[in-house]
């Protein structure tokens, strides 16, 4: 034990004498752990939120019975079904406003609530009584309590004057949801004796058919993983995870090079230790402990940084999840013990993986081999050949996976193989470029320039690989994001063609609104529209009814269409299909599509395919008149208005006053557009932030590599100085070499980045979201990145160069005489 302590003290003394190396190692470890764990924290937070949401929904994880014709149905159906043996539990749901804040009010019945629907409220044990007996309880998430500025036990009123039972916090609820006992909910929502849906418990019993009990009043909705939030958002999280993992790898690159260098420098120390009677097993054991100590120290700091990153990104992630999928993610980051454990484990495993080769070398260390400086790097050189072969194999594998694979995972595999293959190929390519340079030079100093650059390559290659990866990913993601925003703006103009959107409370109100609008001159067109939810292939699909009007004909974002598509649509026998639905169903214009409607099957011809970016559900569009015929029971409450420019705001004000429409029922196109853009910007803000982090980490990798290299390069520079090259000249040469190598790397990163962008747009996005963006190249963005990369290299070189320029001649002399 004590021996181990002294050995550890000796091993650690190295870091005390080489703080820069320790810093490099730590930066690698910290950035690897921080980025990975930050992303993981975000994912965990989101998943925990989904669980909470699912607990409230009893959501789509539980089969449900819903009203066939209207949103609510008689409570007697619940009793009838129970008496017939159906294990159903009633739910009533509605929206209320409290202090102006819209909340979802859920009334549940805890005694019959099916266990698999999630652990609704703390209606486990003793709380049941207080929940179901007067005055009852209003269960809310902690965030909701805070948002309402309430305290537990406070009894609030809705803005309509209904009183809510006393508030009680329930940690596992989703934000902005209030859960009360069913009877209270019915009275608050003015739905006495009515239910919104029935949750169906799992049972193996044979049940009487639904129709014999409930007639045609209810519809059975299967428990469906496909509509589950977790499923919907999977691809979003996969994206995040992929970036987290990439950052982790870049960080490990640094760890690998720092540890490799530290081990190499300590080889003589290891030999001395062995000579002084430390057994090989002891030495390896203590080395392992040292690595773990470093890993845990770095891991802990990394986790703290990861927490900060996650906390910083959470608002954007939450906003984009809410915007894209309607998923509520709680805004307060709550970390679980598993997260800490996993973070430290990743850090430890990463460190061990990065140091595996070095450790193996020490384990096999013959005590007597004469200390060979730079043995580590020389062996690196031998690896170059192997690296080339591996790189080629990886790129080949990428092509194979691309042609054979069909899933999102395989899409990411292509991306990973492409990036790794390219990274491995980089030193080989650089060596080639430098050799060509060397061959074509005559002047001795220039020849030396090329030769020495080539000699430096192995030591720099890890940092350069990191730079290449970071740049390529930046180019890729940047290109994708910009392609998206360019496309998205045009697309929004097409999709949000009307100026004002109205959704009336009832059909009667809709007719009133229509009548009042006809009297207004500034309203140039009133376009009724419809929306219904159907199922195609067992998954939910939206069906839109569009008016036959120039507003749509001119702007609807068609991607592919048959001649006279709008004419066909008007006939009621054709439909437009959203891109993602068409891809999923593998249909093209001209194919037929059968749609189940309340009035029977509807066979439609696909007249066109249109872009519907960002919608996780499939969508089809049909003519509004045909839609109304096929869905006769659906209240016709939706109207789109064309309004003369400049008259929109007063019109909206008037309508708000006249019909008491809130913003969920009356919206302005420009507001909608702005909101949509904000959502999408935030979606990509996360990716962009991670991107920047990755570039930063690559910069640090470059800096630390150059710093360590500059130290060990002095023996090579000292003879030149002795031959009469000034320190300033030496610094100039060093500068040129590094900047040249970095530049070539950046140039190689550009095509790689465009390839990555293509992969993201044409492979990953299509597989993740179902839509494909047009591919645009943004030369300015590329130039900008090259400049950033050069600046990063410049910055990284600054310290070593200054050090070289200021090095006292005496130091150079000593190096010259000592090391030669």
């Amino acid at each position: 034990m004590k021996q181990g302590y002294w050995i550890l003290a000796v091993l650690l003394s190295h870091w005390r004498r080489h703080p820069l190396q320790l810093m490099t190692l730590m930066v690698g470890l910290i950035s690897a752990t921080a980025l990975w764990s930050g992303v993981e924290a975000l994912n965990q937070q989101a998943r925990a939120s989904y669980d909470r949401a699912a607990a409230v929904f009893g959501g789509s994880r539980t089969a449900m019975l819903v009203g066939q014709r209207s949103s609510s149905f008689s409570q007697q159906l619940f009793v009838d079904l129970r008496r017939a043996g159906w294990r159903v539990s009633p739910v009533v749901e509605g929206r209320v406003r409290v202090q102006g804040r819209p909340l979802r009010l859920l009334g549940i019945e805890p005694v019959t609530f099916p266990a698999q629907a999630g652990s609704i409220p703390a209606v486990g044990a003793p709380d049941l009584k207080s929940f179901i007996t007067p005055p009852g309880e209003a269960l809310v998430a902690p965030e909701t309590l805070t948002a309402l500025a309430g305290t537990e036990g406070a009894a609030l009123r809705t803005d309509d004057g209904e009183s809510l039972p006393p508030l009680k916090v329930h940690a596992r609820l989703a934000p902005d949801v209030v859960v009360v006992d069913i009877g209270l909910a019915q009275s608050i929502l003015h739905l006495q004796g009515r239910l919104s849906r029935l949750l169906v418990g799992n049972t193996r019993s044979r049940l009487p058919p639904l129709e014999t009990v409930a007639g045609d009043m209810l519809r059975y909705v299967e428990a469906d993983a496909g509509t589950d939030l977790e499923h919907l958002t999977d691809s979003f999280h996969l994206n995040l995870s992929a970036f987290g993992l990439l950052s982790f790898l870049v960080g490990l690159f640094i760890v690998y090079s720092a540890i490799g260098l530290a081990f190499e420098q300590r080889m003589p120390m290891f030999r001395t230790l062995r000579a002084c009677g430390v057994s090989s097993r002891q030495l390896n054991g203590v080395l392992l402990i040292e690595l773990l100590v470093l890993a845990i120290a770095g891991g802990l700091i990394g986790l703290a940084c990861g927490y900060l990153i996650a906390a910083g990104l959470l608002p954007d992630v939450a906003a984009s999840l809410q915007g894209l999928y309607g998923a509520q993610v709680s805004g307060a980051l709550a970390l679980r013990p598993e997260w800490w454990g996993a973070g430290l484990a990743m850090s430890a495993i990463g460190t061990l993986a990065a140091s595996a080769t070095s450790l193996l070398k020490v384990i096999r260390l013959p005590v007597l081999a004469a200390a060979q400086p730079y043995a580590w790097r020389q062996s690196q050189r031998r690896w170059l050949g192997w690296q080339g072969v591996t790189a080629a194999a990886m790129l080949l594998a990428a092509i194979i996976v691309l042609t054979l694979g069909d899933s999102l995972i395989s899409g990411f595999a292509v991306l990973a193989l492409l990036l790794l293959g390219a990274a491995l190929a980089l030193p080989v390519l650089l060596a080639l470029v430098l050799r060509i340079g060397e061959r074509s030079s005559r002047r001795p100093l220039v020849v030396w320039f090329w030769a020495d650059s080539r000699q430096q390559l192995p030591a720099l290659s890890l940092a350069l690989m990191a730079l290449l990866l970071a740049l390529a990913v930046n180019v890729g993601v940047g290109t994708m994001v910009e392609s998206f925003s360019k496309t998205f703006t045009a697309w929004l103009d097409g999709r949000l063609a009307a100026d004002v959107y109205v959704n009336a409370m009832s059909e009667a109100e809709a007719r009133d609104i229509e009548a009042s609008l006809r009297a207004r001159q500034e309203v140039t067109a009133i376009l009724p529209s419809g929306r219904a939810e159907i199922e195609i292939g067992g998954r939910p699909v939206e069906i839109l009814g569009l008016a036959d009007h120039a507003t749509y004909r001119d702007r609807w974002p068609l991607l592919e269409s048959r001649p006279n598509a709008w004419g066909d649509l008007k006939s009621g026998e054709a439909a437009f299909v959203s891109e993602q639905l068409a891809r999923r169903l593998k249909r093209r214009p001209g194919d037929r599509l059968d749609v189940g409607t309340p009035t029977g099957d509807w066979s439609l011809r696909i007249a066109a395919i249109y872009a519907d970016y960002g919608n996780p559900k499939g969508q089809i569009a049909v003519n509004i008149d045909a839609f109304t015929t096929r869905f006769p029971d659906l209240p016709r409450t939706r109207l789109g208005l064309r309004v003369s420019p400049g008259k929109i705001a007063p019109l909206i004000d008037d309508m708000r006053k006249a019909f008491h429409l809130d913003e969920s029922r009356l919206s302005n196109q420009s507001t909608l557009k702005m909101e949509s853009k904000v959502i999408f910007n935030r979606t990509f803000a996360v990716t962009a932030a991670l991107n920047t982090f990755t570039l930063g980490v690559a910069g640090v990798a470059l800096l630390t590599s150059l710093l360590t290299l500059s130290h060990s390069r002095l023996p090579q520079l000292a003879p030149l100085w002795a031959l009469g090259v000034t320190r300033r000249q030496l610094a100039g040469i060093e500068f040129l070499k590094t900047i040249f190598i970095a530049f070539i790397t950046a140039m190689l990163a550009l095509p790689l980045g465009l390839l990555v962008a293509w992969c993201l747009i044409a492979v990953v996005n299509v597989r993740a979201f179902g839509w494909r963006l047009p591919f645009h190249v943004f030369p300015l963005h590329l130039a900008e990145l090259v400049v950033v990369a050069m600046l990063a290299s410049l910055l990284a070189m600054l310290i070593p160069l200054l050090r070289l320029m200021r090095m006292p001649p005496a130091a150079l002399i000593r190096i010259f005489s000592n090391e030669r």
Partner: protein
Amino acid sequence: MSASPKISRRAFATGLAFFGFGRSASLAQNFAGLGGDASGFASVMPGKSFEFPRDHGPHPDYRVEWWYLTANLRDSTGNALGVQWTLFRQAIQPGPQREGWANQHVWMGHAAVTRADTHRYGETFARGGVGQSGVDAHPFHAWIDSWQMRGLDRMSAMNVAPLEVNASHEEFSYALRLEADKALVLQGEAGYSVKSERGQASYYYSQPHFTAAGIVTIDGRSANVTGQAWMDREWSSQPLAPDQTGWDWFSLHLETGEKLMLYRLRRTRGEPYLTGNWIGSDGQSVALSPKTAEMIPTATTDVAGRRLPTGWRIIIQDRGMTIDTVPLNPESWMGTRVSYWEGPVSFTGTHRGVGYLEMTGY
């Protein structure tokens, strides 16, 4: 007729059903938890005059109440089986019954079938006030979900017969018709059953004289069955003593036509309290003297992580009775939210016959 703390067995079940919803907390704690809640409910007083069919119906002023049926049956090839049907009511707040979801009663149903090699059970819960569960006195109808016990045409209020009873769950179902040619039996002193020296009591009557016939289906296999059945009706508001940990309870049909109800109440400290009633073939119920009866465990079974005494020797000196009981299925464990052992038994010795054993608090 002696003091009968038998209420404890049922009160345990309902009490725990409510206060320990989903938990198997220690019994004593749950009893203690029950303690404060009796105020505001009607008290059980001696001298009540029972009136039927009115008293077949619910007594919402009292906190707990149940309709409890066990049947010892045989199929056409002579194999023994048992059936249980139970409906519990508990008021979670005193006061007049409120309408709709505001109603303060919670109902719990248990049903089970037992063969020598199989034991299947199910449970269900309901809120009062909306019609998912309830009891009507006349015409008699007790139900929860699709499970029900219903008086048939011309039902005799005093005999509580004829009745039909049915239940179904995932793996089993049954439908029985019950007949009785003797009147129900008031337990305790004319139905006033004192259960402790402190004066806690229940109203309590039984119909132990049912004959039963019907169909039992287990795991998809149906059998025609016949046999005898025993119904208990009890209601009260009184809590239990904090030191009661559980009980071992028998209802036995003797081949002579006599019936025996016997149980012992276990306490954390001190001897178990033992009592019961001997019901003659003429229908007269006589309390046993605690001093003359003994219940001795003779065999144990490990089930659901617990060790239970499933074999018993019962000695009743003044009746010249020494019998040994054997469970039809030693693993008759009710793994419901409130869990206990309940299953058919048979016995031999000075007397022979069949019956039911319930054991709680293990």
